[in-house]
């Protein structure tokens, strides 16, 4: 397996992430899905009480079992505490690990299956082990099956802390029991524009679900992406949590977004055309772009493309390309694509150039990307 497949390589940054390929089923709204399991090992304290030696002991035990677990064609291991800052940020941007794992210098690790990066295992984050599967589209049953199988193969050689009463024991009692967090990422621009996203958030909260943004934070959702996930982990089996999300919650919200999109077109066509047109104009012509305004504009351009509004269907890239741009305009990905470190101003310039090329198909010197390829130049 060559270095080009490492998740922080420039080839990987240019290729994008598998979970942003878009899905065939409900792909107009559903972007990706994720299943995460939290586990701890007996014989070691939880991480708030663990010494660096304990942490190294956990990492050794986990690595030994990973070596024989057969989780994928190839498995990358990283001592995250020894990784440079840019590589850590790249892994966070790709959703392979959390911001918490990227912080600090205490021993911690990450394993990622290659080349598809569908499985990642964080070691010494909030719990000793966090097994995660991320897939494109509405593939939650498959993501659960893969995460659970990985869990079984790790547990075959590790003594996992479990009690018949409380289930899988976790450092934070709010995760105890199944230790599972299942989530689906949805693109909900119409619900956000109409203001009805607040109703969705309240209804989700009433049902014991949480609604978070692209990177899981509570702030305004970047790019109109919203992740809906279960909060309760005890007293309900995984199959029930899965079924509720997969069969009830997500289809309901998908229908709600589609209805909101139809209403925008039927009742406020000029307004929504104007918003999509302005967004496309920004992407086609801006010379400096921040990440936030880029994601907002990409979201509206995607909506315009799906609804055939304001010339948005004539962008030079397909839907998967638009989604990948959401990742590639992030600060660390941008620098890895450019293959150089850049300060904020340089990143704003490069971001605007990259987006303009992808949206219009034209390079800065007036050639199209097709002409450049024919001349042996690799367009960005």
């Amino acid at each position, binding site marked *: 397996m060559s270095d080009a497949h490492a998740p922080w390589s420039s080839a990987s940054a240019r290729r994008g992430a598998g979970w942003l390929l878009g899905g065939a089923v409900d792909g107009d709204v559903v972007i990706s899905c994720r299943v995460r399991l939290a586990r701890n090992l007996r014989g070691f304290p939880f991480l708030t009480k663990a010494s660096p030696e304990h942490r190294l002991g956990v990492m050794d035990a986990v690595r030994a079992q990973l070596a024989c677990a057969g989780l*994928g064609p190839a498995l990358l291991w990283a001592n995250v505490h020894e990784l440079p800052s840019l590589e850590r940020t790249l892994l966070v941007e790709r959703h392979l690990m959390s911001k918490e794992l990227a912080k600090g210098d205490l021993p911690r690790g990450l394993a990622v299956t290659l080349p598809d990066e569908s499985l990642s295992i964080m070691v010494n984050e909030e719990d000793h082990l966090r097994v995660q599967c991320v897939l494109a589209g509405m593939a939650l049953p*498959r993501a659960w099956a893969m995460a659970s199988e990985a869990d*079984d193969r790790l547990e075959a050689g590790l003594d996992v*802390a479990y009690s018949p009463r409380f289930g899988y024991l976790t450092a934070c009692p709010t995760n105890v029991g*199944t230790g599972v967090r299942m989530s689906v990422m949805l693109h909900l621009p119409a619900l956000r524009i109409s203001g009805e996203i607040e109703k969705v958030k309240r209804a989700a909260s009433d049902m014991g679900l949480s609604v978070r943004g692209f990177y899981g934070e509570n702030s305004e959702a970047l790019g109109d992406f919203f992740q809906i996930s279960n909060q309760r982990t005890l007293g309900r089996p995984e*199959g029930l949590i899965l079924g509720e999300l997969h069969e009830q919650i997500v289809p309901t919200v998908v229908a709600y977004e589609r209805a909101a999109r139809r209403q925008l077109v039927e009742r406020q066509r000029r307004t929504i055309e104007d918003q999509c047109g302005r967004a496309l104009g920004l992407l086609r012509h801006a010379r400096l772009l921040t990440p936030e305004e880029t994601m907002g504009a990409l979201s509206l351009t995607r909506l315009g493309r799906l609804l055939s509004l304001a010339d948005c269907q004539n962008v030079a890239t397909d839907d998967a390309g638009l989604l990948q741009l959401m990742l590639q305009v992030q600060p660390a990905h941008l620098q890895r694509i450019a293959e150089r470190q850049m300060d904020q101003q340089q990143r704003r310039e490069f971001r605007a150039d990259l987006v303009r090329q992808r949206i219009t198909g034209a390079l800065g010197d007036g050639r199209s990307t097709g002409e450049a390829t024919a001349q042996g130049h690799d367009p960005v």
Partner: protein
Amino acid sequence: MKCDRCQAEATVHEVVIRHGKRAERHVCERCAAKLGLFGPEAGSAPVLPNEPLAPTVTADQVGPPLPAGEAKGDAGDGEGVGGPPAMTFSLVSKLPGGGDRATRPGACRGCGLTMAQFRQTERLGCPQCYDDLGASLASLIERVNEGASCHVGKKPRRLGAEPASGEGGGRAMASSGQPNLEGDARERAAGRARGDAVEVAARRKALRDRLVQAVSLEQYELAAKLRDELSKLDAMLVTGLVQPGAGESEQGRGRGGLDSGGGAPS
């Protein structure tokens, strides 16, 4: 703490609740045996260490009567200890080694964490905390999980469970290390039999812990229900009628629901 009868180190502690009034006595092992506080006559079943010996709950007087004046606490209700109580709970617990544990009361014996420290960090220190931090932690867990207090769902294979991912999980893994499915299935069946006994014993311990809590909180109706469940489990162990693990029905549901077609599990 000294024995109420002979001033040796007290390691057996009895709490008697009669007519809603609570009385305690603390005795050494020898005096406890003389009083019949544990052993076959007290109706106890096989005991795990560090847990109540005899969570006996009867409608009659329990064991030998407390000699008048020897029971600490407010048991004096004018009726004397020989009268027929409406509902009497007697809980006897034994801690090994009396005073040889330096941990503070209410702290985890594994890592020393207290509930006060937990409230600051919102993180536990080790797996033992779940056993040792008692009712406060349990009630917090119930609150966060809408009243649920027990795990339902996947359990580790070493306890004899079928893998929750089923066939779909196997297909989903692209790997050269495919398990020997037939051999694994045989081993899992044998493991399940071993696991059942382990699981019943573990469930029994969990019920006993909850019974201790219920009695200490004077939740008598709950305590009576828990006592009945314990009796059923004891009967299973004695007669050998240990049923296959409760997880099987969920495993069946889980397998059906995890096909890549995404059918809804029941």
